[in-house]
């Protein structure tokens, strides 16, 4: 049986459509470090795009720990498409970008040559 609960503000709990991973932004000596809570995401499934100050990370989290004969008892982790758009304090158009997956976190580092645009 599938029924709908009447409490409509629930859909406001999260922004609809793709889910959004939480992020920390650090200022480094030579640029910025953005840390995304994106455990279990293959680095190949992630795409980072930079346009001016805007940094957008999108991708898909797949549930890759499926065993034969096992089934979900409960699920709290969001799968499937995610997308996060961040307005950065500086223009990153000309920055060098590296993406590293480390201990369940995805680190996006930008290094601006020469001066910093703050």
């Amino acid at each position: 049986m599938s029924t709908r609960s009447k409490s409509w503000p629930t859909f406001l709990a999260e922004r609809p459509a793709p889910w959004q991973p939480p992020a920390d932004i650090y200022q480094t000596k030579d640029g910025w470090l953005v840390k995304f809570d994106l455990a279990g995401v293959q680095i190949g499934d992630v795409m980072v795009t930079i346009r001016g100050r805007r940094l957008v990370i999108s991708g898909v989290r797949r549930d890759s720990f499926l065993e034969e004969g096992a089934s979900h008892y409960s699920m709290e982790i969001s799968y499937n498409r995610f997308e996060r758009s961040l307005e950065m304090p500086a223009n990153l158009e000309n920055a060098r970008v590296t993406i590293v997956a480390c201990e369940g976190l995805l680190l996006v580092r930008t290094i601006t040559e020469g001066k910093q645009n703050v």
Partner: protein
Amino acid sequence: MSEQPVVYTLPVLPLKSAVLFPYLMMPLSAGRPASIAAVEAALATESKEILVFTQRDPDVDSPAKDDLYSIGTKAVIRKMNRSGEGHLELMVLGMERVTLLKVDSSEPFLKGRAIPLPLPDDKGPEIEALQGALAELAGEALTLAQPNTPQELRGLLASNDDPLRLAFVLAAMFSLDADKSQSLLEAPTRAEALRMMHRYLMHEVQVLELRNKITNEARTEMSKEQKDYLLRQQMRAIQQELGEKGGEQAEAQQLRERLEKAGLPEDILKEAKRELDRLEKLPPGAPDYNVIRTYLDYVLELPWTKSTEDSLDIARARQVLDEDHFGLKDVKERILEHLGVLKLNPNAKAPILCFVGPPGVGKTSLGQSIARALNRKFERMSLGGLHDEAELRGHRRTYIGALPGRVIQAMRRAGANNPVLMLDEVDKLGHDFRGDPAHALLEILDPEQNKTFRDNYLDLPFDLSKVLFVTTANALDTIPRPLLDRMEILRLAGYSEEEKLEIAKRYLIPKQLKETGLTAEQCVLPDDTVRKIISGYTREAGLRRLERAIGSVTRKVALKFAEGATGPFNVGLEDLLEMMGPEPFNQEEARRDLPPGVATGLAWTESGGDVLYIEGTLLPDGKGMTLTGQLGEVMQESAKAAQSYIWSHAGDFDIDPALFKTSGVHVHVPAGAIPKDGPSAGVTMATALTSLYSKLPARSDVAMTGEITLTGLVLPIGGIKEKVLAARRAGIHTIILPKANQKDLRDLPEEVRKETEFIFASRVEDVLRTAIPQLAERMDASKTRPIIQAA
């Protein structure tokens, strides 16, 4: 989507009566085995995707492809939890619109093949306009549905980038039913979807407006009373904050303090406290509030136990009474007697006195004088024309504007429970359908009952037994017998000329002089002048006209002084004639020579006594007896009795018996307009008729009164003093009275007794002998003759 058409092959979750829109998150609960299997299958995939379609008929339990709408949503399961009953609680997020191509039911759940069904990417001014209108309407609807909508929600409505999403959000927010939601989902274009949603929302707004209107109406009706209440509560709170007591609280507190101090009798205090408790519970706006307050005020102000101390100094009391009133020996004695009793027994019941007498003899002022002599409070109420019992006994408190009766009100004014309470004009009580106030008076005036007099308003027993009731009346015949029975009758007959002269000299002249501002030296009224005023210008039992006449004389004297005259002014008889004009009353009221058939009688009237003449004449061809002059039945009967007696004793009086047979007789008593009644004209009738039949005139200087019987006895009558005084006023100095009335002469002033010749008769013959001297001779002669029986 410009790319290769995608086909999804995913488990299908059928929804019973809900539609999942793309972009929206929706909590769902899966309970059917097929649904649970579908969800578990979906969760077993990497992407957790599922197809959500709505059933056409929510009652179908295991739907096939045809039972599902062909357009649905591809969704991702975001969260899942198992509830106690084996249900799966889901949070699903709609991704995109899809259309179902095929359903495979080989597995325990439905597996569907679906392709995306994107909407054409239509943009433009129409969409923008529709989006704006929809957002505005949504704002309106939100305000109506939930006046305190979170601000973020409004922001979200305003800032929706995709208009389609706005429509879907609104559909979910306003819980459109499944059919409408499905149509919205199936809308071919954005514009169509927005229009559809606008239509739905418009309806929603109308419903909400109507609902709000109804609630508001109900609320305003209620709030009028609530507003008052609220304001009062606020006022109370403010007063408390200021350290003041609330108005009504202070009032109740004040009443309570007064109650404690009032020293009420036990049972009264109990009742009063009960009422006060009720008062405290009432809001001051309640209609009963003021009723109870007024009631408590009354209870508090009544002299339940308070009494004034009597002055028991008999000598002083006698002096006060004598100062205020001349004569009236009986009444004064009675008051002093009561004083004497009180001295020996302070708890003696007060007598209930009734002063009866003509107007102006001082009944009312005597009451005041009694109060002064006893040093008691005096209260007076007139019963004249009172026709409602409730006036005396009050209205019950249930009536609006109810008040206690006049008796209780008088007690409150007196402020003591032993005042002299004068009930004026007790003979002029009216009565109508509302009851007879005389009956209420029965209780008030009964010493046995008035100890616990219960006023309808108070509904508490009040002790009236200490009150000295004094009633006044002009005549006793209109007072009901039971009432009369309760009172001690004290007659104040009219005053004689000498008494009047004395009263004028002692009270009236000084009073009038004072009023006109003259001194006793400036204006002197000699006795002769006063006598003239008494006899010539006033004719009354009381003193009012005399007082007015004296006032008139003094004013005229004052005028002379004002015009410049000096020196003392002595008002002589000539001056009197000049000032007052000719005498309106003739001293020589008594007729000089009476023709046969006329006799002088004496009558008692409410304004004192009067002289009246009874005239008879024979009618040669008539028969029987005609009586005129407004004679009452008793008087008519006494005329017939007189005639019968004379007829049967015609021989004794030397009257031709044939006369009775051959001629009729007409008896008239002037003045014809005044009704007369009573038996006391019996002897006068007999005299007039004897004089008529015997053709011998009666003496004009003899007046008579007395009742007769058929056997010729003369019986006593009342009102002797008034009658004698009336005769004297008319200048008659010989009066025939019944022998039994001889004792009443004591009431007469000394001078009157001296100057008047009284003849006491025990039989009609005694009367006739005196009244008709010539007949006496004949009677003496007939006695010597042998009695011849007339044939």
